[in-house]
């Protein structure tokens, strides 16, 4: 009879050899192991530890970091409801409650029979077609009562997810406005041919001339980054495409990878030629796992077309290939140095910078990390020239920007505009009415009120990674901010004190206000905490965790004032709420099971 470890060796060994027993592929190995076995078994860790020569503590530490990895059995069906504010607005909480009561399971727990677990997860990037969920890692959109009922039936009947109706998984592109990038008449290979014809240095010159800036939000000059990486000494250079599109409300990369993958991969290949890299990675967020097979097929096709691999387009010594690495539920990995840590199979903790990835990136080698949209734009520039691209947009912001529009509007989806478009124009195009506020660039971005709708999408006015969430007059902006604060608390990597503890304190304080226990004192505390997070956090997550609260306080103060029900300080500890467990255990909820509450 096989020993317990042998049972795991059977499926682990092929995974290990696929990854050449490479310890820096640990995260990929763990994801594959879990896909096979359902969770990461303790005996499996023994085998991995021996084969990869890694301490068990490191493997457990990595597994413990990523939301989607489990060291304990987690149900045959793992149901995760996307919990962005847009999912909330379209009723995800009621749907989760309905599923839970139909299948006799509590949120956050595994059902007693081990059939399923139900929980929430951070924005899954389907805000234009929510509410959404992941079932065993695969995305389902447009949840409704009917769809939830059908899902309950399928789970009860133990139908494998692969046999569920295909329409559940039909993710739409929803492209509403096309400009140069989304017009999509790009011919695979055309930009590479242009590069080979024009020359490598000349192509870098065109990228510089285009004044292209990073589309992930920070807006660093792409030409400068590529040049710095090219000039940095190293044994190897690497090109990384950041497709860890975790910012709540952003979903443009989902569409670019679904329908424009060639343009993206070609941009990476141009960058490889310019920087001298022969290996590249696409870091694909775990929520977009359903795109993996499609992307692998595109890569394979490009290899067949001699657009990847050795001697690209017959050009001797032009060698480059791309591997796809999956994320596993960690927003922080969208930060480029955390992403590199994750690519190296580690916990996704942002590094101390400097040094920056352009000189010390993947395996400490010079590395370009760019957003999906940046690489796609680079392909167009190589093809049509820098001057052409620089002729679009504004002085500070050349070219186009794709916006992911969601929330209270008639036509959510993708809108590509030349930079400089006003917020009002976008609102009018997407059919938004009675708009109270727009959250631009996601939870870490800015909240714009109606008197600012004439502001423009541009690096010198409102810079954005692409999210554009619309809130009409019915919405409570305090609840919007509270949702984002909980998001940051959930996604804090835990490395530095202010963000690890501060985001959770902030979430608790917002909850206290929501429960009617807030006083002006708590309000002042929230402001102080925000200032501390901004000044002392290790990375951008901590710095921007305050933005939604600070913005909504500044612009929607009445939403907070309504919450400050108490004139004087009231402790967050609520004795009656503390008795809720006792009530649950005894099945009582009558008046006698509650404390008298004089203020209600």
């Amino acid at each position: 009879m096989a020993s317990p470890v042998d049972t795991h060796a059977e499926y682990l060994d092929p995974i290990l050899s696929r990854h050449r027993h490479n310890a820096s592929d640990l995260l990929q190995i763990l994801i594959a192991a879990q896909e096979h076995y359902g969770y990461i078994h303790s005996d499996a860790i023994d085998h991995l530890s021996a084969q990869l020569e890694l301490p068990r503590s490191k493997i457990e530490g990595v597994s413990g970091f990523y939301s989607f990895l489990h060291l304990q059995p987690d149900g045959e069906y793992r149901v995760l409801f996307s919990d962005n504010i847009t999912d909330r607005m379209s009723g995800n909480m009621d749907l989760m409650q309905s599923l839970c009561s139909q299948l006799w399971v509590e949120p956050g727990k595994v059902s007693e029979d081990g059939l399923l677990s139900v929980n929430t997860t951070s924005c899954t990037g389907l805000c234009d077609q929510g509410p959404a969920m992941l079932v065993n890692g695969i995305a389902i959109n447009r949840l409704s009562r009917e769809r939830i009922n059908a899902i309950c039936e399928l789970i009860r009947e133990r139908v494998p997810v692969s046999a569920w109706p295909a329409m559940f998984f039909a993710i739409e592109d929803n492209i509403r406005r096309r400009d140069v990038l989304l017009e999509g008449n790009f011919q695979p290979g055309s930009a590479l041919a242009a590069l080979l014809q024009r020359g490598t240095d000349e192509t870098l010159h065109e990228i510089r001339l285009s004044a292209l800036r990073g589309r992930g939000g920070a807006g660093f000059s792409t030409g400068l980054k590529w040049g710095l990486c090219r000039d940095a000494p190293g044994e190897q250079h690497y090109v990384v495409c950041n497709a860890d599109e975790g910012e709540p409300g952003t979903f443009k990369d989902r569409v670019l990878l679904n329908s424009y993958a060639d343009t993206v991969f070609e941009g990476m290949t141009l960058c490889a030629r310019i920087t001298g890299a022969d290996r590249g990675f696409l870091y694909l967020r775990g929520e977009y796992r359903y795109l993996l097979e499609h992307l692998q097929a595109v890569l394979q096709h490009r290899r067949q077309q001699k657009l990847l691999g050795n001697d690209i387009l017959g050009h001797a010594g032009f060698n480059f290939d791309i591997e796809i690495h999956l994320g596993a539920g960690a927003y922080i990995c969208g930060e480029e140095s955390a992403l590199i840590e994750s690519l190296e199979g580690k916990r996704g903790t942002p590094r101390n910078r400097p040094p920056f990835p352009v000189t010390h990136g993947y395996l400490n080698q010079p590395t370009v990390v760019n957003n999906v949209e940046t690489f796609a734009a680079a392909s167009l520039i190589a093809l049509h020239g820098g001057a052409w691209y620089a002729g679009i947009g504004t002085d500070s912001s050349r070219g186009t920007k794709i916006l992911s529009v969601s929330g209270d509007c008639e036509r959510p989806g993708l809108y590509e505009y030349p930079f400089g478009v006003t917020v009002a124009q976008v609102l009018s195009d997407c059919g938004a009415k009675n708009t109270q506020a727009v959250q631009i660039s996601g939870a870490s971005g800015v909240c714009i009120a109606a008197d600012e709708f004439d502001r423009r999408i541009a690096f010198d006015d409102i810079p954005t990674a692409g999210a554009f969430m619309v809130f009409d007059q019915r919405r409570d902006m305090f609840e919007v901010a509270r949702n984002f604060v909980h998001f940051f608390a959930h996604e804090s990597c835990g490395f530095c004190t202010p963000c690890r503890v501060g985001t959770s304190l902030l979430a608790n304080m917002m909850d206290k206000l929501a429960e009617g226990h807030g006083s002006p004192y708590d309000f002042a505390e929230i402001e102080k905490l925000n200032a501390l997070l901004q000044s002392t956090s290790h990375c951008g997550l901590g710095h921007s965790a305050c933005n939604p609260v600070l913005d909504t306080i500044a612009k929607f103060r009445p939403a907070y004032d309504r919450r400050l029900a108490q004139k004087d300080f009231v402790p967050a500890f609520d004795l009656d709420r503390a008795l809720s467990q006792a009530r649950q255990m005894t099945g009582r909820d009558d008046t006698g099971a509650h404390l008298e509450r004089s203020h209600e």
Partner: protein
Amino acid sequence: MNKETFPTFTLDGKTIPFTAGQTLIQAAMAAGVYIPHLCFNPEFKPHGSCKICTVKADGRHTSSCTHQAQDGMVVESNTQEINDERRALLQMLFVEGNHFCPSCEKSGNCQLQATAYEMNMMSPHFDHFFPDRPLDASHPDYLLDFNRCILCSLCVRASRDVDGKNVFALSGRGISSHLIVNAKSGLLADTGFSGDDKAAQVCPVGVILKKRVGFAVPIGSRSFDEQPISATPHPVPAAATLPPHPQGACPVGPRSKAATLPPHPTVKGT
């Protein structure tokens, strides 16, 4: 050597010389100037996670343990603004774990407690998290009390980089981050841990404790009972087991403890 050849920066107005590659705190320490810190230990590569050593360098907040010194830099450390921030960060560390100083064997030798005194922290201020963190008393000679862990990762670094054992690691994320040990059972007894390890010596708080020596040195006669942490050479001798550190001349003379130390912050139930 001619002193003028050293580049310098100013720290609260005082000129601090440094050598290439030194970080702000390293240069300050070499010059005998104290910058409050917890996850930094001069024997290890700086980490930059606790943020207690935050200073303002040329007007910008940064961790002095990881920020490389540059010629002509103007650094502020001992200011009301920065000390207020440090106090708030210390309060966060206190409410995140379960710290009951009066009953803790490390009291008086604890860097968290001593730094809290230094920063005049008089209460935990924030609401406690009261996490559930069971003890690990499995090892014959050592005890792990995770309640006091501040996630500085010094034991992780010591075990990995000095002992070559990887006994400790961090797991979880965010507020659920926690220390784990390298054993299938999850118990220290089943790891390669030994009292001779560097990792046994580096905990700045009271997580890694030697058994059967508890309170051998009475409270009141411990390192920080004698003088504040700002006047104590680093690293702190773990009770009587380590000799005093040879470097780092004491910049401030010993103070009379009764006259200068505020009352112990009884962190719970105040």
